[in-house]
């Protein structure tokens, strides 16, 4: 009996009218946890009832606390007939179970009904008293912290990163149970919502247990997904990275927060910076997966590609023996693990040693329908009784799904090995289901890791020392991890353009974020490859076979498109690569998104050469040369647009042994002429980085055209799908997270691959254009973490869902930072790891003379006594009047605070910087909950993680037209989902959700019946953040701590 859950129902407001006669409602509340239910009194005739109930106490196991949601139902009392439900609130009490997170959940929650949406709000207070040692019962894993964030959370330090944890649970989907035929849609939806909530609670608990077994205390990069397999069931699966985290003792003593993650690393006690660099990759040989061992399931393993770099030339000797040593060490650390996978996409400094390239695996499975429920406890343990409530015996053993995934992971692991890597980072898994066919996909980035983090300390000493000496700053991760004499694929290697010592590939593809200190030239941009392939409608095995035959071609084409577009942008590396393959009844869609950048360590990409097959036709040649010119112009334009001007100076200084890479070379495979002397010259150097497009049929023409039709974003806009935009780091605090959904209906006649491609391409491009237009008031601004998902809900429908965040940045400063960036990298190269010294230096040189410190001090003192309005107070503000008063106060105080900021800021900025320091105080938003897919909040510091938010909602309507059609219906639903997420965060005492993700948005409509249904699953981390401007007061009181960070902090401060 290790816990007591206490719930108090305070009041309701804005309830719907349930009694037409009086235009009022007689509301009461049922509070249910597990099998215990309490009720409040009926509050007669009011739309704003004040129940003020006693504390309802539930005495429960901590296991239950983890699995079960608290269920609050608001009803209308009816003397003569059954009470009508108004709606429900599910509260996940998990955040109350960790010691450092929230201690109380208290606030207004929207009352949600799956048919009517939000119907008023209810004020609830929830507390948990935990007794006993939390870990005594091994069935529960209270105390293990979960984070959706795919990097080490900001106010923690990673002591050990243990590695991959995964789990899945299976159950029958209530929607497909026989009872669904006789119950109402509402009951069925609620059954589903509750089941999924229960399953995710259980899943989380089980993962927690695994973490405890590994002696970790947290899961980072936790990703939980649902597979709605229809009749064959419902799978909830999760992956994550187990870690041992240490809370940083007093975050306030460190710098005011940083907007860019790059600052964070300074806070981390680990010494040496990770390298940047890149290793790229390219298409290559296809590794065929091992045959399937599965008996009852039809299964096709699909050949997968490894994207890696290509290179040539001789090996750098220096790295050799050391590399081997390192490899050995890491290997031993990793080999104990079944899957050396990490769901992280950003790492503590020094963690990532080399990156090999993207590895991915896919497999096509047939979902089986077994109608003889085996009497196996679904969860295979004592807790399965719960699921009996649902009349469901599992129709499928989780082992089957487990085996499927194990197979895929095995394949990923072997791909990584082939690349000379022992680990896979930025790892993720996904599925696409259509009827009974399911494509399982996994992808990640093969990498070599520093063993230091992987096991309990002990190791390093000398090795570490050597590591630091040997790893050139900012390019180490680009260096190839594989043996160049024994490369797994044809690659093209050169010496690193940064350190000149090690080999690098010519292109690098990865699924991770850009390492924070990677030396990047210019800005990055979002690059997408889009592809559709028609497929015959087929059944079962035939269908699966058809799909698996198509997959390799799609992978190949997606890769080619990515490569072409990357070159067209004049860039040489992709980060955050996500390839999604979606299966529909009669087509397959592929959508790859990534952020292209120019890594200084990699060679300049060659151009794109067009070659014709039929050289004798004059007009045709003319056409080709015309196209060629267009392509060249585009490349030149893009270079200018993204400010890609690799410094030629450095090459001369170092005296590169490698031929001037900026000229284009080409490899002629067909007899195309368009002769160009330079090219020939380069060829003689044996360099072959040109990319030749042969135009031999209309398909290829299409490709070239589509290359050229991608329009760059309007000026003032940038976009990327990674956390931060390379080349921009002066974010302001203005952010806007949004979700946009589009569904198009294809005209069914004569669909060809080309037409399909065009439609899909237009859909995506138009969607982006609309976004740019909508957000134009935020210019200059960058769309970060742009996340596209494609689904094919029906034969002729394509649905694209985009979630991203727009962040405004300061244009004036952008110029400066590019400069400092280069400066910094130079400095970094020369000085060694003592970064702490380095910053004060920069500080002095820049600005100290003009803005001495003393004046600032006085202001500071006066300000600190007047410090700003406490966050809590702001949150609670409920009435207009309070708001106004508060605002008045803020403004009054703001005036003082502003001065402080200005003075403080001045040491590191120029005049323009001053103008900007005022707004944040003035805007300081009241009661607003920010949401962002990023792991940080620009201009603010996260001071506390309150727990994971993981919510699943179903909305259904039988009056679609009345609700404004499909658009009106979905618009309202998504707005409601946002509202519920915000309400939960606010109730936890938080003011933001970071690493927010909409994992699923399944929309089904039946306009003829005037019906529609939508399922949405979202997750993220609830946090408390403090504006940097508010923190500065604190930091200045500790001059030692402050002077070093303020340099970086300043760039970002808003």
């Amino acid at each position, binding site marked *: 009996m290790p816990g007591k859950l206490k719930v108090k129902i305070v009041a309701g407001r804005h309830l719907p009218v349930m009694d037409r006669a009086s235009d009022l409602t007689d509301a009461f509340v049922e509070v249910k946890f597990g099998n215990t239910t309490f009720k409040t009194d009926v509050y007669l005739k009011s739309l704003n009832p004040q129940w003020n109930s006693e504390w309802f106490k539930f005495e429960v196991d901590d296991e239950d606390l983890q699995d079960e949601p608290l269920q609050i139902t608001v009803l209308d009392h009816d003397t003569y007939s059954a009470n009508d439900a108004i709606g429900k609130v599910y509260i996940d009490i998990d955040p109350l179970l960790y010691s450092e997170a929230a201690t109380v959940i208290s606030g207004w929650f929207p009352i949600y009904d799956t048919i009517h949406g939000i119907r008023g709000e209810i004020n609830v207070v929830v507390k948990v008293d935990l007794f006993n040692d939390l870990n005594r019962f091994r069935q529960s894993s209270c105390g293990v912290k979960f984070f959706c964030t795919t990097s080490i959370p900001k106010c923690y330090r990673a002591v050990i990163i243990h590695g991959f944890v995964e789990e899945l649970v299976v159950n029958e989907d209530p929607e497909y149970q026989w009872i669904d035929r006789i119950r109402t849609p509402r009951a069925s939806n609620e059954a589903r919502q509750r089941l999924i909530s229960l399953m995710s609670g259980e899943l989380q608990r089980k993962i927690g247990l695994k973490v405890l077994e590994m002696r970790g205390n947290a899961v980072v990069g936790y990703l939980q997904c649902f597979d709605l397999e229809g009749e064959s069931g419902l799978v909830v699966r999760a992956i994550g990275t187990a870690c041992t985290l240490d809370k940083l003792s007093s975050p306030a003593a460190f710098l005011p927060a940083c907007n860019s993650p790059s600052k964070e690393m300074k806070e981390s006690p680990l010494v040496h910076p990770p390298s940047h660099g890149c290793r790229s990759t390219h298409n290559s040989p296809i590794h065929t997966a091992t045959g399937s061992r599965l008996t009852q399931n039809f299964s096709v393993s699909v050949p997968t590609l490894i994207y890696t770099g290509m290179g040539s030339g001789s090996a750098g000797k220096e790295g050799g023996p050391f590399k081997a040593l390192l490899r050995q060490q890491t290997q031993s650390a990793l080999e104990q693990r079944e899957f050396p996978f990490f769901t992280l996409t950003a790492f503590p400094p020094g963690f990532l040693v080399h990156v090999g390239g993207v590895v991915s695996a896919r497999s096509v499975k047939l979902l089986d329908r077994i109608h003889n429920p085996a009497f196996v406890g679904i969860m295979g343990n004592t807790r399965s009784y719960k699921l009996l409530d649902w009349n469901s015996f599992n129709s499928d053993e989780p082992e089957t799904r487990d085996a499927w995934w194990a197979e895929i992971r095995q394949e990923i692991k072997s791909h990584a090995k082939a690349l000379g890597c022992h680990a896979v980072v930025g790892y993720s898994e996904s599925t696409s289901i259509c009827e009974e066919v399911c494509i399982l996909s996994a992808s990640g980035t093969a990498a070599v890791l520093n063993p230091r983090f992987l096991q309990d300390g002990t190791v390093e000493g000398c090795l570490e020392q050597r590591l630091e000496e040997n790893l050139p700053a900012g390019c180490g991760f680009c260096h190839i991890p594989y043996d160049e004499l024994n490369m797994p694929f044809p690659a093209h290697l050169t010496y690193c353009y940064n350190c000149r010592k090690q080999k690098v590939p010519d292109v690098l593809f990865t699924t991770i974020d850009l390492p924070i200190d990677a030396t990047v030239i210019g800005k990055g941009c979002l690059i997408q490859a889009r592809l559709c392939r028609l497929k015959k409608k087929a059944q079962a095995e035939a269908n699966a076979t058809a799909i698996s035959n198509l997959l390799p071609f799609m992978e190949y084409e997606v890769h080619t498109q990515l490569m072409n577009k990357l070159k067209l942008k004049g860039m040489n590396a992709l980060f955050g690569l996500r390839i999604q393959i979606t299966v529909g009844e009669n087509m397959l869609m592929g959508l790859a998104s990534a952020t292209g950048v120019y890594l200084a360590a990699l060679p300049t990409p060659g151009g794109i050469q067009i070659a014709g097959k039929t050289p004798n036709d004059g007009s045709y040649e003319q056409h080709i040369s015309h196209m060629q010119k267009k392509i060249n112009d585009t490349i030149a334009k893009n270079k200018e647009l993204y400010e890609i001007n690799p410094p030629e100076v450095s090459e001369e200084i170092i005296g590169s042994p490698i031929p001037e890479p900026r000229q284009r070379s080409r490899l002629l495979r067909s007899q195309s002429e368009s002769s160009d002397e330079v090219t020939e010259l380069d060829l003689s150097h044996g360099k072959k980085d040109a990319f030749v497009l042969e135009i031999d049929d209309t398909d290829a023409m299409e490709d070239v055209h589509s290359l050229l039709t991608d329009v760059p974003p*309007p000026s003032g806009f940038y976009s990327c799908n990674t956390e931060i935009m390379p080349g921009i780091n002066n974010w302001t605090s203005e952010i806007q997270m949004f979700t946009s959904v589009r569904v198009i209906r294809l005209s069914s006649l004569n669909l060809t691959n080309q037409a399909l491609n065009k439609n899909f391409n237009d859909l995506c491009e138009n969607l982006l254009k609309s976004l740019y237009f909508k957000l134009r008031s935020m210019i200059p601004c960058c769309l970060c973490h742009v996340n596209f998902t494609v689904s094919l809900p029906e034969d002729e429908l394509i649905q694209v869902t985009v979630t991203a965040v727009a962040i405004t940045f300061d244009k004036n400063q952008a110029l400066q930072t590019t400069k400092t960036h280069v400066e910094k990298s130079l400095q970094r190269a020369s000085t060694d790891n003592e970064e702490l010294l380095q910053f004060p230096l920069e500080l002095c040189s820049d600005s100290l003379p003009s803005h001495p410190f003393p004046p600032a001090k006085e202001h500071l003192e006066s300000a600190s006594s007047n410090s700003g309005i406490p966050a809590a107070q702001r949150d609670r503000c409920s009435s207009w009047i309070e708001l106004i008063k508060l605002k008045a106060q803020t403004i009054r105080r703001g005036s003082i605070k502003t001065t402080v900021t200005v003075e403080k800021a001045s040491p590191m900025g120029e005049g323009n910087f001053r103008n900007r320091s005022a707004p944040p105080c003035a805007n300081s938003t009241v009661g607003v909950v920010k949401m962002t897919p990023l792991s940080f909040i620009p201009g603010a510091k996260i001071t506390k993680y309150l727990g994971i938010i993981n919510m699943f909602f179903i909305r259904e309507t039988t009056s679609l037209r009345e609700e404004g059609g499909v658009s009106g219906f979905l618009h309202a639903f998504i707005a409601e989902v946002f509202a519920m997420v915000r309400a939960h965060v606010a109730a936890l005492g938080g003011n933001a959700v970071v690493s927010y993700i909409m994992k699923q948005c399944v*929309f089904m409509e039946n306009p003829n019946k005037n019906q529609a249904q939508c399922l949405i699953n979202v997750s993220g981390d609830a946090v408390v953040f403090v504006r940097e401007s508010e923190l500065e007061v604190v930091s200045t009181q500790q001059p030692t701590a402050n002077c070093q960070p303020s340099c970086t902090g300043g760039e970002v401060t808003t």
Partner: protein
Amino acid sequence: MTSELDIFVGNTTLIDEDVYRLWLDGYSVSDAVALRVRSGILEQTGATAAVLQSDTMDHYRTFHMLERLLHAPPKLLHQLIFQIPPSRQALLIERWGYYAFDEAFVREVLGKKLSKGTKKDLDDISTKTGITLKSCRRQFDNFKRVFKVVEEMRGSLVDNIQQHFLLSDRLARDYAAIVFFANNRFETGKKKLQYLSFGDFAFCAELMIQNWTLGAVDSQVDDMDVDLDKEFLQDLKELKMLVADKDLLDLHKSLVCTALRGKLGVFSEMEANFKNLSRGLVNVAAKLTHNKDVRDLFVDLVEKFVEPCRSDHWPLNDVRLFLNQYSASVHSLDGFRHQALWDRYMGTLRGCLLRLYHD
């Protein structure tokens, strides 16, 4: 390829001021798109018409969802569905104008009963004023809604409106005037009143609310600011002796003339007209016991005072001097005992007349 569904939902609700205005003005989506195209936005932003169409649809959908909340602005503050920064909320309600109204429209309905019957006339008003029917409906419904909410409430009318609709002081005063006029059904539509603006009436309404309603004497009554003080109106009959008693009238006239001699450009006209003017003003007061006459208050004031003075070309300043002296002199009339009543009546009337006196 047709778009089946196309939505954009921001964590912070995006509101485009221009589109909001178009929506308030009652334009359909396609008209709004056309107007936006004409504004040159496509050239400025390089967007396509399709983008504009989708953007406009999206905003209209949002506004449609917001409208329910705008009907009770305090709900907008507490609701959780749309995250709108407080500063923006205020803009929605007031400055960009859900509760803003067109001068032309309000002049048409001012003083009319806010009932279904009037609503039926909106078609005509729309044609006459060139304001779209949708916009007319919104404005009319706003008036009606505010009226319904504050009609039977205690406390100051302006405060009540401010509190329940979160309007600025200025706009709340305008609404108070509208409610006051609607409740008392003052006639404002007659041809001879056409030269008066809504501002003129609102000014008068404010004075009347301050001095002539129940609230002026007792702040704890229902309807205090909406209904005229019946007792006071009844008492006004007593003023009649000022014109009925010939001695009193003469004495009054001589007091005024003595005081104004040499100060008035139109002295002779004033002297000649004094009795007529005075009769007019006092008779207006005496008639206010009948609802019908209350409704005609402004018609009477214009007929009996404004027009005669205007035809004699009195400058505004002379009117002011005259009215001041006219009210003040009564205090020196020994036989007249209703000084307080007179001041309550004349104080307000003087303010109104000065405001009404223009071309």
